[in-house]
């Protein structure tokens, strides 16, 4: 038992030191707490003083049992939930005190989301689904070109004008990833991106995430139960009971 704790602490230190050495931080979390049902008998501590740093271009897998706090962490990072206390910096901007409008701007400009529940709009083409986030802000010719390029990277060059009903589950998730990237976000947050996919299509999706991480330098944080995801990431983090209990660099990834 004692040996395991020492080992974990060493792993956390190794990863943190590696990040600390770099000034190129894109996410920094300081003493982040999130309580639910605060000051009631049912109070739940979803996050307990989490400290966490992410360097630009990392592909991090966040793992942990159900209820461990990993999704809560992702929600706060995604500017879609508030923290009870602590600080969260996204690309240098502290987000915990921002209003909804500014949070929406952060979501639009800094973060792309990939969800377990893919959800594409069935009545429009894959290309239009990718462009959907840009709709209220205007879609230019260069946006369309970028969307096509993303679909090409995702291996959907010949499927871009098909409607979602004509695509397989894996193809849909790849469209969803392209949609997450259309705003050119420096960060992609993925919540169980392979949760609804079989192993083969899941592997295709993970390869795509790995490719955009490597080729475009996009930082990826993926929450998953799937241990295979860790194989594609550069670093994996374990959260247990609202605390980071393991944070290690993947020595096997290229």
């Amino acid at each position, binding site marked *: 038992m004692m040996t395991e704790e020492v080992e974990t602490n060493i792993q956390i230190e190794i990863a943190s030191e590696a990040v600390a050495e770099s000034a190129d931080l894109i996410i920094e979390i300081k003493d982040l707490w999130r309580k639910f049902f605060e000051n009631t008998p049912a109070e739940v501590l979803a996050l307990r003083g989490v400290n966490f740093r992410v360097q630009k271009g990392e592909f991090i897998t966040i793992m942990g049992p159900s209820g461990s706090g990993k*999704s809560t962490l*992702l*929600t706060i990072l*995604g500017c*879609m*939930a508030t923290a009870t206390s602590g600080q969260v910096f996204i690309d240098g901007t502290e987000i915990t005190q921002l209003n*909804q*409008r500014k949070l*929406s*701007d952060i*979501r*639009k*400009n800094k973060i*792309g*989301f990939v*969800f*377990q*529940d893919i*959800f594409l*709009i*069935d*009545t*429009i083409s894959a290309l239009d689904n990718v462009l*959907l*986030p840009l*709709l*209220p*802000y*205007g*879609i230019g010719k260069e946006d369309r070109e970028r969307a096509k390029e993303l679909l090409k990277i995702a291996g959907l060059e010949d499927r871009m004008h098909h409607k979602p009903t004509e695509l397989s589950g894996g193809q849909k998730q790849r469209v969803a990833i392209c*949609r*997450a990237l259309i*705003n050119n976000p420096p960060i992609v947050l993925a*919540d*169980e991106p392979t*949760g*609804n996919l079989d192993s083969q299509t899941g592997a295709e999706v993970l390869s795509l995430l790995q490719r955009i991480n490597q080729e475009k330098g996009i930082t990826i944080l993926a929450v998953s*139960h799937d241990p295979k995801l860790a194989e594609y990431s550069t670093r994996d983090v374990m959260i247990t009971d609202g605390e980071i209990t393991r944070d290690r660099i993947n020595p096997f990834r290229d």
Partner: protein
Amino acid sequence: MKVGKVTWFAFKNAFRRKIVAILAIVGISIAITMQVTINAFTTGMDETFNDIFGELVGTFQVQEKNTPFTYASQLPANITETIRNFENSSLIETVATEQVLPSTVNNYTDILGTTVFGSPMGMNVRGIENLDDFSKIYSELEELTEESRTFEYNQDECIIPYALYENNSEVFDIGKTFSIKINSTHTYDLEIVGITAAEIGGIQQSIMVTGYDIYVPINVTNNVLAELLRNDTLNYMYHYTPFGLDPNHFGIENPNIVAIRTTIENSEKVNDYIDDLMAYLGEQYPEMEFSALSLASALETMDDLMATQNIVITVVTIVIIISGSMGVIIAQLVGVEGRSKEFAILKATGWKESHIIYSVIIESVTLGVAGSLVGVVLSFMSIKGLERLMASTAAGGMPFIPVITPAIFFTAIAIAVGIGILGGLYPGIRASSVKPMEVLQGS
């Protein structure tokens, strides 16, 4: 926000959930059908009243006071000129002077039958002083049949109404001559040169329904009166003595009635104007008393009725907007609940709450406008159906024609937009408040 793109996206989205869209459209179309139909009927009624009476608001007739029949009214021979010298005569468009014969001088009751009231049908021989002025007030002589022409002055010619020709064409037709019977021994021949197709002849017909109007130049009535006074003591005694008319001065040069059209469009102001004119005429002819006959008072009452009717329509419209909005709210709430993932994605990818609210409102407005268009079509069909139904009944048709005017159409569209905005606002707020992670975590 790029309004056009989001609007187009929302417009297409409105029909994605077909059942919800159909339910919303059906609900709105029923409400709009009611609203448009009621409006079409009341507008038709308004227009009919306006057609009949509207142009008569500023028109009135002047005659001698306390004369129960038009022909017993003896106006000064120069009354037209006097009226034109009235200080407010700039508001007068036309003065049309007439000399009317008593109906019994043309005893055609055997041929003509009875009036709708059961009394013997007679003829109102109307001697027109100036045809142009007459036509500016009365429309009858502007609707002559093809073979017709207007009468010539100083000729014994006349124009008859179509109903008289239709019922008695063997006697009354163009080119034929018929005689006015002054008494048992004297007649006066008139050649028919025209037939008017007009059914209702202005204020005169609106007020007096005593028989067929025969239009003649004033020289004809002058001549008949001269003959009457010279030869027909009995008729004279019967017709004129009871009204205190002097046989030595009465009739030949004096008109019986003057119709005046003013530019005044407000019935209250017309009444004021009439009062002023009566006072002026009283000053000019101190020995005489005048009375005026106008529809202004009746129209004032009608205006009040129309105002009440407009209040009812407004209340109905408000009820329709509220009930329609409730329908759209329910339909949209169902739709929004089922689309929480979509809104979650949109929100997660950078759509602002305002974008989502706007999008949902546009969807509602689209459904509202679609329902409104269907409602207008249904209303049109139901009006036509009612018209057919009425035509097949004893009434033989509607007393007025319901009309869907552009104003009614655009009001329906405006109501639909109102329903859409009201009905979409709350569901839009609900949609925009969705929490993406809660909805999309899935597991």
